[in-house]
């Protein structure tokens, strides 16, 4: 970490498991603040009259208020302040890109280091889970209206939480056998322990949300039938679950996984735990293609599964890498190597169809492309081959057509994403809202939650007063 001195007191570093230890276990990497550190960090906040941090937060958490509560030791009150705007603080405190949201706006950050808002949010949520009295936010009187929420990821959980508090009868449908969506299949245990997601979901159930797992809406029941069954409104938050491949030779070899498959086997199906029957290729030399957070998660998981070497292959330079700084930094500390300006050309296998090597080309950066980032251009004659027995493709994902193709009334854009009003999440089908990755394409947990919040507000208006 940087040790720059300034007039402003430096922020309190997050205690972490040492890199050489944690690369061999699935336990959480950052250990969390203790009470004293949290209070000390909270006193760094200068309680701005016009807090920029709140404007940087997609769900507008009252940040100065909860920080003040920590500084004064009123933890229980602090968590209740957060709950008014955010049903999943233990999750957000861990996986939000704070550096580009709340902390990115913090006035202290202009001259020194911003207040560790994410660490403080996490502290309160963890404190409440361990010591809290289990009291729940208050619910409004029952309205008798029924809401179906499809998909139990961050967007769906937010909608369910908001609407159950407003007195509606909420049923949450999940295709997998466990709720949480990307929080349980995608984000690894060492970054977001599953027990935390479970506890957040349990809170929703205690508030009265009905949870229905193992149910694929679009197959077992479709959107129209939900209305026939008596639901008054439907929220679609099914995520961006269709893995992209590169369409290069050898992608069907054994040992080539999509990041979705690799992470689902590892996280949801707990392949790392010998008690589970989930088989998985354990690579010795692993190549992860891509430069986002998912690529970092896959690379760090592969290390923990026992790989000797893990390389991130990314076709642009470090600067364009979309992963959060903290994630790429953690990965590098743990021994993940970065092969930048490199692009895979093909995978090769043995006679049994098992992956043995990957051939790549070096790239250089040319003019900016449509995304505004400099376009990678292949360098002639730079091909090289390296040993590789496990490759994980983490180059993004598209919209899963399963639900949308079963309901033609819901209009889609040309990428297959649902067209929803960005202000309120309304789709072209009356009584149906959508939000999160199925609308925006793959994005972040907090943006999905922000979309859920807007949709929930609009749905409540509809349920209370009509469209």
């Amino acid at each position, binding site marked *: 970490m940087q040790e720059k001195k300034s007039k402003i007191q430096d922020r309190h570093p997050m205690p972490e498991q040492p890199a050489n230890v944690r690369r061999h276990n699935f336990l959480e990497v950052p250990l969390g603040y203790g009470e004293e550190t949290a209070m000390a960090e909270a006193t760094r906040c200068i309680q701005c009259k016009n807090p920029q941090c709140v404007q940087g937060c997609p769900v507008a958490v009252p940040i100065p208020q909860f920080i003040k509560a920590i500084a004064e030791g009123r933890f229980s009150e602090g968590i209740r302040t957060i709950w008014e705007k955010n049903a999943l603080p233990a999750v957000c405190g861990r996986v939000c890109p704070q550096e580009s949201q709340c902390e990115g706006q913090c006035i202290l950050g202009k001259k020194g280091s911003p207040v560790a808002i994410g660490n403080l949010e996490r502290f309160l949520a963890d404190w409440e889970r361990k010591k809290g009295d289990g009291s729940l936010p208050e619910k409004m009187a029952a309205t008798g209206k029924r809401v179906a929420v499809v998909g139990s990821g961050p967007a769906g959980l937010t909608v369910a939480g908001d609407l159950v508090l407003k007195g509606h009868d909420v049923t949450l449908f999940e295709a997998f056998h466990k709720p949480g969506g990307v929080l349980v299949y995608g984000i690894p245990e060492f970054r977001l322990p599953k027990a935390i997601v479970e506890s957040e979901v349990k809170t929703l159930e205690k508030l009265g949300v009905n949870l229905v797992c193992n149910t*694929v809406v679009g197959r077992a029941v479709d959107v129209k039938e939900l209305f026939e069954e008596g639901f008054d409104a439907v929220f679609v938050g099914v995520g961006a679950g269709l893995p992209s491949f590169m369409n290069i030779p050898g992608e069907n070899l*054994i040992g080539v996984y999509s990041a979705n498959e690799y992470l689902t086997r590892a996280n949801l199906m707990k392949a790392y735990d010998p008690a589970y029957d989930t088989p998985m290729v354990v690579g010795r030399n692993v190549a992860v293609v891509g430069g986002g957070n998912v690529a970092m998660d896959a690379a760090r998981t592969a290390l923990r599964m026992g790989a000797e070497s893990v390389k991130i292959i990314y076709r642009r330079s470090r600067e364009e890498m979309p992963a959060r700084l903290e994630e790429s930094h953690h990965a590098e500390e743990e021994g993940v190597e970065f092969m930048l300006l490199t692009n895979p050309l093909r995978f090769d296998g043995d006679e049994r169809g098992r992956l043995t090597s990957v051939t790549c080309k070096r790239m250089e950066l040319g003019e900016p492309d449509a995304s505004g980032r400099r376009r990678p251009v292949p360098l002639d004659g730079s091909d090289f081959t390296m040993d590789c027995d496990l490759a994980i493709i983490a180059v993004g994902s598209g919209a899963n057509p399963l639900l949308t193709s079963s309901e033609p009334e819901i209009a889609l854009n040309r990428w297959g994403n649902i067209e929803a009003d960005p202000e309120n999440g309304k789709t072209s089908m009356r009584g149906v809202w959508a939000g999160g990755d199925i609308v925006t394409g793959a994005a972040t947990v907090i943006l999905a939650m922000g979309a859920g919040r807007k949709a929930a507000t609009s749905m409540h208006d509809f349920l209370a007063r009509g469209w």
Partner: protein
Amino acid sequence: MFKIVKREELVPSSVILHEIHAPRVAQKTRPGQFVIVKATETGERIPLTMADTDPVAGTVTIIFMVVGKSTALFASLQEGEGYADLIGPLGRATDIEKVGHVVCIGGGTGIAVLHPIARAMKEAGNRLTVILGARSADFMILKDRMSALADTFISVSDDGSTGKKGFVTDALQETLALGKPELVVAIGPVPMMKAVSEMTRPDGIHTLVSLNPIMIDGTGMCGGCRVSVGDKVKFACVDGPEFDGHAVDFDGLSQRLSAYKEEEQAAMEIHRCRMEAQAANSDQQS
């Protein structure tokens, strides 16, 4: 829990039938669709195409052969017990229409998958030839039900213990000699589906096969079940499980199916040892 209301050993300790209470799935399922089942919290998710459904009783029927640890675990489940998870119906349903003469070919436990498709083809008014193949008479499942559906019924076995001695392709060849059918549906082991597809290719007889690759979520999310069809990569869970047999890369499919062979054998060994240890324990106690 998804309760097993009926259990039958079609082949003693090898081919098991489970009728499972799952009303929502039972009501929505059409022929050709599959479910994913998981026996326990720590178990594997396994896709199985349904052999039958009863919308009134709210049950679905699966028939599976014990081949590894997970299916051995399924087989140990008794009536009144159940599966921790059951997800379905998944995949696209078979296109059922009246086309004329349909030849339905089932091999091994593929016969179970074929059953609802053959029935629907018959109900749609097609003339139905059913060809069933198995190792021996013991493994010839659903023979009575299938022969009752068929206008022409042929069974073959590797050892000649039931029907003619030989392979389903022998029976198909005889059938083709009598005239060109409009459609062939072949469901069974990969080499069988490949051989049938090769046999119908020269005459351009439309041939459907049902694939059962390794799969996790069954909703198109993981891409694990990808299979080359023509020059395209398809996901069996959402684009299939049925595909044009003339376009499927069967060799690629066989390779991908062998991905976890070693892990599965190891897991089965450990499972067997544990079961034997348990049995020895309970013997001692009794």
